[in-house]
């Protein structure tokens, strides 16, 4: 089946990896945390996997596992100070974290290649691998969202004071959301590194952070499919409107403003909500359903 899409394979890669990053962003949003640290975690995972594969000769699979672990660890460590902050302060602190990671990559030239980038990475990750990584991550997030963790996250997002009054320890779930976000970004960062021959620090700077954030806002931040929809729109849009490609940033901006104004919960989440409301309205029309 993939042969059919051969000319567009790079686009699929972008969608799968972009969705991974967007899921890493969405999970902290779901927990009511305003962190934008995902691209920092991704950078750590990517460089970790690349360095281990090229310099230490580690098997790529092991390198990806290490990259994921590093992301998770970074998430845990970052969560400790950030759990004490709220809202916009958390966002600024996590933005600072991303900048520190990028700066470190630039300074540690011996290890990372510095501003010249890190090269000669074996290209071992196939689109199928990315696809499965994305599907498995989404499946795990759906399962997690349906159980007790999802309930605690939902409560914390909608009203932290109520969550606490019901016995939810906010710090514990903040840390959990950061760890999950770190592990997911670390995983997709590692995979990203091993499909691209080379890495540069700019790849993980402010622009990917904004891209990831846009995808989540555009697609929807409460469901697991929202980020996929958002990333797909953002990746395909410039392809569909080739003549507008050089105005990409302007189109991004315009699209975001339109979505926020008319579909404040994102394209996918808004559709799901209106379907639910329609179903409820239909039920309301029926004379007293059984069980009522």
């Amino acid at each position, binding site marked *: 089946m993939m042969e059919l899409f051969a000319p567009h394979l790079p686009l699929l890669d972008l969608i799968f990896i972009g969705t991974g990053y967007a899921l890493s962003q969405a999970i902290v949003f779901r927990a009511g945390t305003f962190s934008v640290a995902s691209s920092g975690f991704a950078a750590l995972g990517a460089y970790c996997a690349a360095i281990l594969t090229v310099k230490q000769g580690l098997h790529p699979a092991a390198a990806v596992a290490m990259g994921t672990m590093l992301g998770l660890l970074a998430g845990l460590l970052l969560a400790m100070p950030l759990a004490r902050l709220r809202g916009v302060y958390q966002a600024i602190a996590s933005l600072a974290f991303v900048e520190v990671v990028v700066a470190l990559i630039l300074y540690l030239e011996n290890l990372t290649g510095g501003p010249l980038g890190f090269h000669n990475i074996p290209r071992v990750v196939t689109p199928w691998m990315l696809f499965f990584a994305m599907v498995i991550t989404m499946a795990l997030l759906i399962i997690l969202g349906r159980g007790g963790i999802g309930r605690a996250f939902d409560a914390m997002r909608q*009203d932290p004071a109520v969550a606490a009054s019901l016995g939810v*320890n906010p710090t514990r779930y903040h840390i959990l959301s950061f760890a999950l976000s770190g592990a997911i970004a670390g995983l997709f960062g590692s995979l990203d590194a091993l499909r691209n021959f080379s890495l540069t620090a700019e790849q993980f700077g402010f622009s990917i952070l904004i891209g990831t954030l846009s995808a989540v806002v555009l697609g929807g931040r409460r469901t697991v499919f929202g980020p996929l929809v958002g990333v797909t729109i953002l990746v395909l849009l410039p392809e569909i409107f080739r003549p507008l490609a050089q105005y990409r940033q302007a189109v991004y901006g315009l699209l975001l403003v339109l979505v926020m104004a008319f579909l404040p919960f994102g394209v996918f989440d808004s559709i799901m909500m209106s379907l639910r409301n329609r179903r409820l309205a239909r*039920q309301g029309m029926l004379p007293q359903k059984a069980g009522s």
Partner: protein
Amino acid sequence: MSTLTLKGVSKRFGGLQAVSPFDMEIAHGKITGLIGPNGAGKTTVVNLITGVYKLSGGSIRFGDIDLTEASRHEVARAGMARTFQTIRLLPDATVLANVMIGMYRLQKTSLIAQMFGLPSSRAETRRFRDEAYVLLERFGMTRYADYPAGTLSYGDQRRVEMMRALALQPDVLLLDEPVAGINDVESAKLGEIFRALATEGKGMAVFLIEHNMRFVTNLCDYVYVLDSGQLIAQGSAEQVINDPVVIKAYLGDSDDA
């Protein structure tokens, strides 16, 4: 079942003495009321009990557990549930989800089991859903189960908040103006539910703050009266409403005006 005991509890906000040192007991199997004019410090008392505010002095004990320094979630885990004076639901979540989140305290499966959706965690979620439906039934709200809580009417939202508090299966239930804005017929129904909670089974300790005097006198076994942060009277509802000090606090002196 144990009694919630407050000893010499006080709260000061900067230079303002919001609540002067007072003692209070909230006993199981009883409905204890706290009344007082606006601004008397009633909600502050609930916020002190539930760990929202740190105490300026005194101690709070619940049976053998010292809750003086406990944070909000620790208080909840000790078995205390509250409702809020201004309704605070999870507005986008369904009524069912709002009630199920109340069962957080009863969760026994590990984080790992929940993360990977192991059978134990799925069974727990199913059990919580069934128990939530029992509560919905009790409050006559079954047909709203799938509605976003924020779309319900005021009285129904109050009911959802109470169901959520009860979902904790608390030992102590703290109700901050539970029948504010609800008509007499509906309040009477709620009153019956509160009475049942206090007498049925192990017998919950029910504590309620209320303006509605008739409701309090009909329902409460023991009443505390707070005025300007001072505990000015306590006793049976009958005693308290005939106490001249209380009448003065509510209606003012005849010489005033």
